[in-house]
Every structure is written in structure tokens, then in C-alpha cells.
């Protein structure tokens, strides 16, 4: 906390504004290179998707037994990471925690980008994407897919609003101060998006009220999207999915994945945009503690999810569990449990590890572990069936994702990262007016 106080004394609105608007005004070759490489990757995966459209899903490794592969597990991963917007801004924010102010917008940008990609990869997984509208024309409200479409769409809208509305004062500031500093189209964009914000007390009052309503609304919606996502599996009779704790199991796992993503984003935004004075070690320390907390809760659900059936070893469950514990998925399973859960918890207990760089590495470990964990949840449960698998060609048993499938999947992840990268460079990564407000600087006076 001592760090913050020192900065507080010299903080003026001009300083804060300059620091936070600098990334928007300046050009950076590293950033350009990053964007170009992401765009190239997305383009390659788009070409691969073209191949899939032409030849059908036969280009993937999925077959009649494992009919959901890395597309669906990446979908679950996207939804999981997207939940972090709700965790940071709504849950921690509504509890009155002030340290989240510099990182809440980053969390919301991640949430918006990832939940949009969740919607996209579902279309990628469809055998007939040309019939997407059937979902709305012939919808059956009894199907978990209909629930999922409903809540994901709702979450996209609320996330977008939650990102956009609190940004209005910042857009007003940018409109007033960036003319001439940025290309004309950019200024026009800020001008239009600021919706004529002039910062009257009346406007602030409405903004505070609206944001608060949205923050409360987003909690049940975010819980719903991941609970319903878990029900896509849990509503079936399949061993491994047929579990009553799948909803909370998914939600707590989502917080772990999201914390990891935020830690990575915090680290690179802090370094890349030189925001060391804003995203301080305090934020990292607190995020590290939050990460340990949510990981411990997730560990508790993991223990329940695996040890309870493993103690009983019901025939059909046993086949599935043996695949994970000692069978064909043994390495993936223990990798996700150790690197995606146990190690981050243990490391997070030490204050030395709750520094920016170690936490970034832990974040990477968490996110990679989280992706493989979704694979572990989706695929092994499909490999085994109640009845013997006979009279099928060899490649129908088991699952091995193809190059095309991997490229498309990585392409959607690259697109999510690309959207986040563009958002953080196009808009201030943290709320200028909220930071100013917190440091006791009057915004209105300077406008």
C-alpha cells in the first residue's frame, strides 16, 4: 500500500491522462509486429476453415464415438475465461475492493473477446453452419443448446455494455484531448462513441446507477452461462459427465482459468505500455491471493469429482477413470492437475512468488492447464461407450486432432487475443476518471 501513497502525492489529472492515453497516441513497432503475426495466423486458420467447409468435418479427427473434440473443449475454455470479467468487476468490485480499479477494464475486455469467440467456435463445430438460423427458427426450449445460445448472447451484450458504459467519461476525455494526436477516423470514433458526454453530475449519477445495475445483473448471467455450458455434458447419461456437481465444478474452474488470463494480460500491458505506477505490485499480490483462493475452491471440487466415483469404481465409471488416472490420458490428466492447479496453489502461498514475473508464468501454466483440463473433461468421456465398438475403421476409436483442426482452434484463440490486443490499444486500458477519482483528483475541472 505504501507504493500507492507516494504516487498519490504527485498525481494530477494531467499526469494520469498522459500516462493512460500515451499507448493510444504512440506507435510501437513491437505491437505492430504482434498484430501482423496474429492476423497472419487468423488468415491461415480461416483458409483451413474453408477446407473444412468444402470437405466437411471429415477433415477433423472427430468420428462417431468422439464426436466432440477440441472445438467443443475450446468452447468451454472460452466461456471459462470469459467469466473473469464477472469475477473481478462484479464479485470483487461489489465487495468494495478498490485495488481492482486498474485491472477491471482489462478483465472486461478479455471477457468480451473470449465470450464472442465462444459463440464463433460453436459455429465452427457445426456440421451445417449454413443452417445456423434454424436454431432461432425451430428452437426447442427443452434443449440445453437453446439455453446456452440464450445466455451466451445475453452475456455478450451485458459484457459489451459493462465495458462501454463506464468508458463514456474516458471517451469524452479522449474526444476533448486527442484531436490532432490520433488519425482522424480514430478521433471520429471516439467522438461518436462518447455519445456527447460532458461530465455533468447528472450524467455521473446515471452512469453510477446503470453500472451498478449491470454489475449485479452480470453475476447471475455469468453463473448461468457456465452452468448451462456444463449441462451440455451433465444432462447426458454418459459416465464422466453424468455428475451432479458439474455446474459449480465448471464455474470454479472458470475462475481459475480467468485469473490466469488476467495475470498474463496484466503483466504484458504493464510492461508494454509502461504502466508500472498504475498496475503496481499490490495488484499482482492481490490477484495472486485471489488466484490461490479460487484454485483452492476448484481443488475441492476436483477432489469430489474424481475421488467419489474412484472409491466406488462402478464398472462403467471405472473404465473412464482408469483412462485418466493411468490410461491413454494419464499425462494430460496429471499435467492439468499439477500445473493447472496444485503447483499454482503451492507457489501462490509464498509472497516472493506473488511478484509480476513469477505470477505471469503461473498465469501461463494456469491457462495452458485450463485448456487441457477442458479437453480432459470432454474427450475421454466420449471415448468409451456402454456397448462395444465394433465394425468401425481403426480411426473411429479414440481421438487424435488433425492439423487442420488444431490450426482452426489456435486461430480462434489467436483471434481472441487479437481482439484483446486491439481493444487495449484503441481504448485506455484502465478507467482514467475512476483512477483520478480514487487518487482524489477532480476530473470535471480539467475537462
Amino acid at each position: 500500500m505504501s507504493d500507492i501513497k507516494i504516487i498519490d502525492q504527485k498525481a494530477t489529472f494531467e499526469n494520469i491522462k498522459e500516462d493512460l492515453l500515451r499507448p493510444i497516441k504512440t506507435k510501437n513497432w513491437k505491437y505492430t509486429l504482434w498484430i501482423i503475426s496474429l492476423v497472419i495466423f487468423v488468415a491461415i486458420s480461416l483458409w483451413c476453415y474453408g477446407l473444412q467447409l468444402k470437405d466437411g468435418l471429415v477433415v477433423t479427427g472427430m468420428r462417431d464415438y468422439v464426436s466432440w473434440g477440441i472445438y467443443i473443449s475450446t468452447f468451454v475454455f472460452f466461456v471459462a475465461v470469459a467469466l473473469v470479467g464477472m469475477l473481478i468487476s462484479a464479485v470483487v468490485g461489489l465487495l468494495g475492493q478498490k485495488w481492482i480499479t486498474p485491472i477491471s477494464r482489462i478483465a472486461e475486455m478479455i471477457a468480451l473477446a473470449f465470450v464472442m469467440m465462444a459463440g464463433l467456435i460453436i459455429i465452427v463445430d457445426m456440421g451445417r453452419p449454413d443452417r445456423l438460423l434454424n436454431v432461432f427458427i425451430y428452437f426447442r426450449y427443452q434443449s440445453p443448446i437453446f439455453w446456452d445460445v440464450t445466455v451466451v448472447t445475453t452475456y455478450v451484450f451485458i459484457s459489451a455494455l459493462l465495458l462501454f458504459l463506464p468508458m463514456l467519461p474516458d471517451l469524452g476525455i479522449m474526444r476533448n484531448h486527442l484531436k490532432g494526436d490520433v488519425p482522424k477516423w480514430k478521433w471520429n470514433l471516439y467522438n461518436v462513441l462518447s455519445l456527447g458526454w460532458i461530465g455533468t453530475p447528472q450524467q455521473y449519477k446515471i452512469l453510477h446507477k446503470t453500472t451498478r445495475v449491470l454489475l449485479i445483473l452480470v453475476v447471475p448471467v455469468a453463473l448461468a452461462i457456465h452452468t448451462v455450458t456444463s449441462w451440455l455434458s451433465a444432462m447426458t447419461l454418459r459416465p464422466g459427465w453424468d455428475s451432479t456437481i458439474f455446474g459449480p465444478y465448471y464455474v470454479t474452474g472458470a475462475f481459475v482459468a480467468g485469473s490466469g488470463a488476467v495475470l498474463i494480460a496484466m503483466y504484458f500491458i504493464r510492461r508494454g505500455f509502461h504502466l508500472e505506477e498504475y498496475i503496481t505490485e499490490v495488484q499482482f499480490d492481490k490477484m495472486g491471493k485471489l488466484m490461490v483462493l479460487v484454485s483452492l475452491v476448484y481443488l475441492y471440487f476436483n477432489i469430489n469429482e474424481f475421488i467419489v466415483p474412484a472409491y466406488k469404481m462402478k464398472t462403467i465409471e471405472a473404465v473412464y477413470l482408469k483412462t485418466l488416472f493411468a490410461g491413454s490420458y494419464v499425462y494430460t490428466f496429471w499435467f492439468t492437475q499439477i500445473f493447472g492447479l496444485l503447483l499454482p496453489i503451492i507457489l501462490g502461498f509464498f509472497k516472493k512468488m506473488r511478484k509480476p514475473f513469477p505470477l505471469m508464468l503461473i498465469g501461463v501454466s494456469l491457462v495452458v492447464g485450463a485448456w487441457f483440463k477442458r479437453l480432459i473433461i470432454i474427450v475421454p468421456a466420449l471415448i468409451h461407450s456402454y456397448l462395444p465398438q465394433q465394425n468401425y475403421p481403426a480411426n473411429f476409436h479414440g481421438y487424435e486432432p488433425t492439423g487442420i483442426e488444431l490450426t482452426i482452434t489456435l486461430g480462434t484463440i489467436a483471434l481472441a487475443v487479437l481482439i484483446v490486443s486491439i481493444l487495449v490499444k484503441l481504448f485506455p486500458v484502465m478507467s482514467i476518471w475512476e483512477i483520478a477519482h480514487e487518487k482524489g483528483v477532480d476530473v470535471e475541472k480539467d475537462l
Partner: protein
Amino acid sequence: MDQTNESVKPSRRAFLKKFGMTLGAVGVVGALGVLNSCSTKEAGKKFRFINAKGEWEEVDVSNMKLHLTELQKRGREGIHNKKFVKVIDLSKCKNAQICMSACQKAHHLRPEQPIMNVLRMENSNGTGFYFMPKPCQHCDNPPCTKVCPVDATFKREDGIVLIDNERCIGCRFCIAACPYSARVFNWSDVDPRYAEEEKDLIYNIELNVPQKKGTISKCIFSADRVRIGKLPYCVSACPNGVYWFGDFNEDVVTNGTSKESTRLSTLLEEKGAYTLIPELGTKPRVYYLPPVDRLSKYDYNGINYLGEKEADQSEE
């Protein structure tokens, strides 16, 4: 005055009636025109399809959409007052797999799409094996139709679970939901063997032909055959008398090989019939008769049902 009024009234009513009918007819014609304009094929061309009697029929392009919707409507309604049921006598099955090939031929499927599959079953270690033909179980509490987001797969009133591959979006949720692994997916385009035959063929939901890339396929109890009072393809193809097929309401089933009919309830009772994985609560419409007194001991690559080679058997 009164008289004239009365004479006018009915005629006005008749006029309105006619006017309404004309409007309706115009609407229908207009709608057809719109539908036809959606089709990319040029006018005057003939289309072929398999009709209800199982024969080839040709129609003009202008009626094409009408026929498709008619087939869809009929296929979704099903056959009134029927409850189709299948009984599979496991003691008779010798793994001839003729049911499988007949089914695949009728439904234009690839060899790797065994929607009728003969499985080599072993209930526990050392209990010997038997062959179990496994079609869709046409459950009365189907887990697959429950999860379909677009009502592409549905259960008809006659008990058959169908798939509409003109509507299916290919999400494959039903595959994940089915505990009997009864569903297959069209991962790639139509099997080239049937490409010529399927050219300009109108989709018949009760035959599920032509198959379409990116949609689900499944056993549909040969709904096109049962509509015309015939036995399903697999049932009539079996040389070993494994299959009985019939109507639960009538309480009669017919054997596909011997063509003899018997009382369903008696058959199920006397032979101690069972259903597959009943503990899941799916309530299958396919019954199995236990694999007792299996006909042949040497029917699986020279290995008998105790898992021993023929040579070993002779040594004993």
C-alpha cells in the same frame, strides 16, 4: 323488400366465400411460386424420387417443393394407432451381417456407418459370447430427441425416432446423448457409389435418402417400408429368423425369415425378453430374447462362443 333482401344475402355470402377461396388459392399458388423460385434448377425439368410404394416416380420441378413438404409432413406425423416394436432373438443370430448390408444399401450409407450393427457381446469374463444386432432402440424416453435444439430428431406417435436431415444443424449433441451409440454422422459428402442415383432425388424423411454431408443418420425402423405394410429392410433380409417386427397395439409380431406371426406378449413372456441397459430409464422399443441354445458353436472366425479355437475343442 324482405324477399329481395333474403335472396341477396346468400348470394353475397356465396360471393364472399368464393372471394375468400380465390384469395386462398392465389396465396397457395403465390407461395408455391416463391418456393419454386428458391430452387436453383430450371423449370420443366423432371425430378425422380422413391414414392410410398417403394417405386421410382417422376415429378415436374414446379411440384418439387410441394412434394418435399408433403413428405416431411407425413414423415413427422407417423402412422396413426400403431406402436412399432422389434424383437431380436439372440439365440438365432449367427453374425451373417446381411441385415447390416441390406440396411446400408437401402439408406445409402458408407460401410463405416453401421446404424444396424452386429456386436460380439460377452457379458462377463468367461461367460462365452453371443452376437447382438443393435439397431436404434427407439426409446420411449429418448435422450437424443430431448437435447436436439431444432427438433430435427423427434419421436413420432407410432414410436419411431426419425431424423430430418433437411433441418439438422450437425451439432452432434444427440450422438453424445445416446447411450446405445446408435447414431452416426455424415462426416463427408455422399458416398460416390450412390451419387448418380441420388442426382435430383427428393429427400424422403422416412428413408433418410439422400444422406447429406454434415447431418446425422440413424436407424429409422425403415419408416418408408412400414408405411406400406412391409417389414423393415434388415428384418426381411435376415436368413436366420433373428428378427420379429410388428405392432405393440395389435400385440402381433411377424418373423422376417419365416413370415409367421405370433402374439408379442406371449413371445416376450415365454422367452424372458429384456431391453438393453434398462437402468438408464430410456424405455427401449426393441426387445431382446436371451442367447440360449445358440445355433452354431463355430461361427466367428472358427472360434466358438466359449472363446476357444475349433482345434482346442476337438482335443477335449
